[in-house]
C-alpha cells in the first residue's frame, strides 16, 4: 500500500526509494519463506490428520465385517451413539479439569507471587525455588503419578490420618475416587499454572505497588486493583495451559481412578480405539472433545481474554 502511495508522488522521491522498497519487499518475502516450513508442518501434521479424523469418524462397519474393518461412509449417527453413551463422561472430564484449574490457580498464584515479587531481591533463594518449580519435569510424569498412588493408598499416611480424625469413614478409601483423580490433575498441571504467572509477575513494576500504597490503598485493594489486573494475561495463559490438557488427560484417571465414577473422556477414547477396536467411535469422541474444548476456549477468550491475546 504505502509503496504505491509513495510511487504516485514526485519522480525523484520514487527513484530514490525504489531500491529500498525492493529490498524491503525482498526482506518481506524472506520472512514468508521462513514461515513456510512451519505452515507445511501444520498442514501435514495437524490439518491433514484432523481431516482424516473427521473422515474416520463417519466410517461404518459393513454387516458381517471382521472386527477392525470399516468402510468410508457418512454415518453421522456415530456421533449420536457416542454422545448418548458418553456425555456424562465428557461433562465429568470438563468438571474435573475445571476444579483442577481453580485449585492450581489458588495454589499456584501465591507461589508465583512469592518467587517473582517477594524474593526479587534474594537472587539465590529465588533461583532455588525456581528450580524446585521446574524440578518435577526432570522425572517421569507416570512415575510421579504412580508415587501419588502410593501416597494415597489405603495403608498410606494420608488415608490413615484422615481415618483417625474421622474425615474418612473407616471403610473409605482415597484411590479410585474423584478426589484422587482431581488431586493428581492439580498436582501434575500445577507448573503449567505457576510458570506463566511467574513470568508475568516477574515484570511487575513494584513502584506501582508503592504508588498504590501512597494513595492510601490497603494491601487487598492494591492486589485487586493493581497486581491482579497487571498479571491477568499470565493467569489467563496459565488457566488455558492447565485446563486444556487436564480435560483430555487419561493417565491420572487410569492410575488414580479406574472406577466408574472417575472415568474421563481420554480413557474412553483409548478404550474405544484399542480395546473395542471401534475406530469411528474413537474418532468421533476425539473430534467432539476437540471441538468442545475449542468452543469453551473461545467463550473464555471472549469473556476474559486480555488484549494481547485477542
Amino acid at each position: 500500500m504505502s509503496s504505491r502511495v509513495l510511487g504516485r508522488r514526485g519522480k525523484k522521491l520514487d527513484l530514490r526509494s525504489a531500491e529500498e522498497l525492493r529490498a524491503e519487499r525482498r526482506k518481506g518475502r524472506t520472512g514468508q519463506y521462513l514461515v513456510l516450513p512451519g505452515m507445511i508442518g501444520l498442514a501435514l501434521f495437524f490439518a491433514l490428520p484432523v481431516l482424516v479424523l473427521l473422515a474416520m469418524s463417519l466410517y461404518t462397519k459393513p454387516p458381517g465385517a471382521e472386527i477392525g474393518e470399516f468402510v468410508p461412509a457418512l454415518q453421522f449417527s456415530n456421533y449420536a451413539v457416542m454422545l448418548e453413551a458418553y456425555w456424562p463422561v465428557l461433562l465429568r472430564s470438563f468438571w474435573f479439569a475445571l476444579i483442577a484449574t481453580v485449585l492450581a490457580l489458588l495454589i499456584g498464584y501465591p507461589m508465583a507471587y512469592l518467587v517473582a515479587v517477594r524474593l526479587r531481591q534474594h537472587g539465590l533463594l529465588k533461583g532455588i525455588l525456581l528450580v524446585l518449580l521446574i524440578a518435577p519435569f526432570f522425572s517421569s510424569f507416570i512415575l510421579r503419578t504412580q508415587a501419588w498412588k502410593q501416597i494415597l493408598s489405603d495403608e498410606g499416611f494420608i488415608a490413615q490420618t484422615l481415618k483417625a480424625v474421622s474425615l474418612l469413614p473407616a471403610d473409605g478409601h482415597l484411590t479410585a475416587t474423584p478426589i484422587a483423580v482431581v488431586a493428581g490433575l492439580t498436582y501434575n498441571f500445577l507448573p503449567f499454572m505457576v510458570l506463566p504467572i511467574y513470568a508475568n509477575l516477574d515484570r511487575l513494576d513494584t513502584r506501582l505497588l508503592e504508588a498504590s500504597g501512597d494513595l492510601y490503598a490497603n494491601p487487598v485493594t492494591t492486589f485487586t486493583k493493581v497486581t491482579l489486573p497487571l498479571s491477568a494475561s499470565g493467569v489467563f495463559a496459565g488457566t488455558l495451559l492447565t485446563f486444556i490438557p487436564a480435560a483430555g488427560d487419561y493417565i491420572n484417571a487410569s492410575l488414580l481412578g479406574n472406577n466408574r465414577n472417575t472415568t474421563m473422556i481420554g480413557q474412553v477414547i483409548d478404550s474405544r480405539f484399542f480395546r473395542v477396536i471401534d475406530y469411528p467411535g474413537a474418532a468421533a469422541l476425539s473430534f467432539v472433545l476437540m471441538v468442545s474444548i475449542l468452543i469453551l476456549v473461545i467463550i473464555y477468550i471472549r469473556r476474559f481474554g486480555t488484549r494481547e491475546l485477542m
Partner: protein
Amino acid sequence: MTRKQAVANQHRQLSLALTEARLSRRGVLSGAAGLALAGLLASCGTGGTGDTGSTGSGLSPAEDISATDKRLGWANWTLYLDYDDQAKNYPTLEKFMERSGIDVRYAEDIDSNDSYYGKIQGQLSAGQDIGQDLVTLTDWMSERLIRRGYVQELDHANIPNITNLLPELKDVRFDPGRRHSLTWQSGYTGLAWNKKAFPKGLRNVEDLWDPQLKGRITVLDEMRDTMPMLMLDQGVDIAGDWGQDEYAAALEVLERNISNGQIRQVKGNSYKQDFVTGDALAGIVYSGDITQLNFEEGDQWEFTLPERRGLIWSDNFLVPIGARHKANAEELMNFYYDPEVAAEVAAYVNYLCPVVGAQEAMEKIDPELVDDPLIFPDAEFLEKATTERELSVDEETDLQNQFQAVIGV
C-alpha cells in the same frame, strides 16, 4: 526360582514399568490430541476393506528369505521370557542366537491382545510385513487371525520337536493339527487373595462379594477373562451353548458389585500394584502374576482355581502373513520345544509349560518347581479349568460393548 533370579526379576519389573510409562505417555498424547491416532486410522481404515469376514482373505504369504537373511523379529508380552539382569539379556535367547546364527530382535510389544491387533490389523489385511516374524497371541485372538488368513502355514518338518507338545494341546479348536500355530505358554485365570488380611480365603467367585472385602476387590478389564469367570460362577457351561440371557445375568452381578463399591477397580495387568499397596485384597487374576508377586514381595498371596472352575488359556506362536523369515521363526519354535530350554523358561515365567519332558528337565534347574501344579498340572488340576466357546464377530462386538458400558469406559 533362586534368590538371584528373584532379584533379577524385580529389576526387570522396574525397567518394565519405565518402558510401560513411556508407551503410555505416548498413548496420552495421541489420545488427547487425536493426531497420531489419525495417522493410525488412515492405515487401519483403508486396510481391510477389500473383503469382509469370510475365511481366507486371498492373501498369500511373503517370500521367505530366511536362507540368506539370518534375522528374526519376535513380539512377545512383558515378563514372558527368562531374563538375566546381570548380563542384561535373555539367556535362552542368547543360546539360540549362538547356536543358530540367527540374530533375533526381541520386542516386548504386546500389552493386550486387542491393542496389539489394533496396531497390526491394517498391515495384516493388506498382506504387508508388520515388522515381526513371530507374534505371541492368546487363543481367541489366534482364532481370529487364522480365520482371517492373516498367518502363514507352518512347516512341521522344520519343527521336529513339535512332538513334545502336550497331547491335549495338539488339536485345538481353532487350529486342528497345529498347522498355523504353536503354544508358547499357557496359564490360568483364577482367584487370589491376601492371606494375612483375608485368612478365610476364597473358594468361588461369589466369595469376592464378602462384606469384609468391600472396596478391596479388583477384576480384570479383559472381557474374555472376567465375564466367563462370572458365568462359571453361576453354573453356566461356558464351553457349551450359552447366550444373551446367561451373559446378561453375569453382567448384572458385575454391575451390582461395581455400583455398590464392592469392586473398586476394573483394570489390566497393573492390578499387581494394588495388591502390593494393599488397596486390593482379592480379585480375579492370572496365575503366573501371583507366583511372581510372591517371589518379589514375600509369600503374601494365594492363587486358586474356583471350585466352579477357572479359565485356562494359551498364548500361541504365529507367523504373520507378511513375515519374511518363517524358516527362522520355525527354528526358534523348535529350539523352545527342547525340554531343557522349556524348563529354563518355565522356571522364570511361572506359567504352564506346554512341553513334554520339561518337568524332568526342571529337576536340575529348580527341584521345588517340579511339583508346582501351576507349571506342571496333573490331570486332576487341569479338570478345574475350562475355556469358553467360540464367539461370532457380531456377537463378540455386542458382548464387548455391553461389558464396556458396565465398567464405564
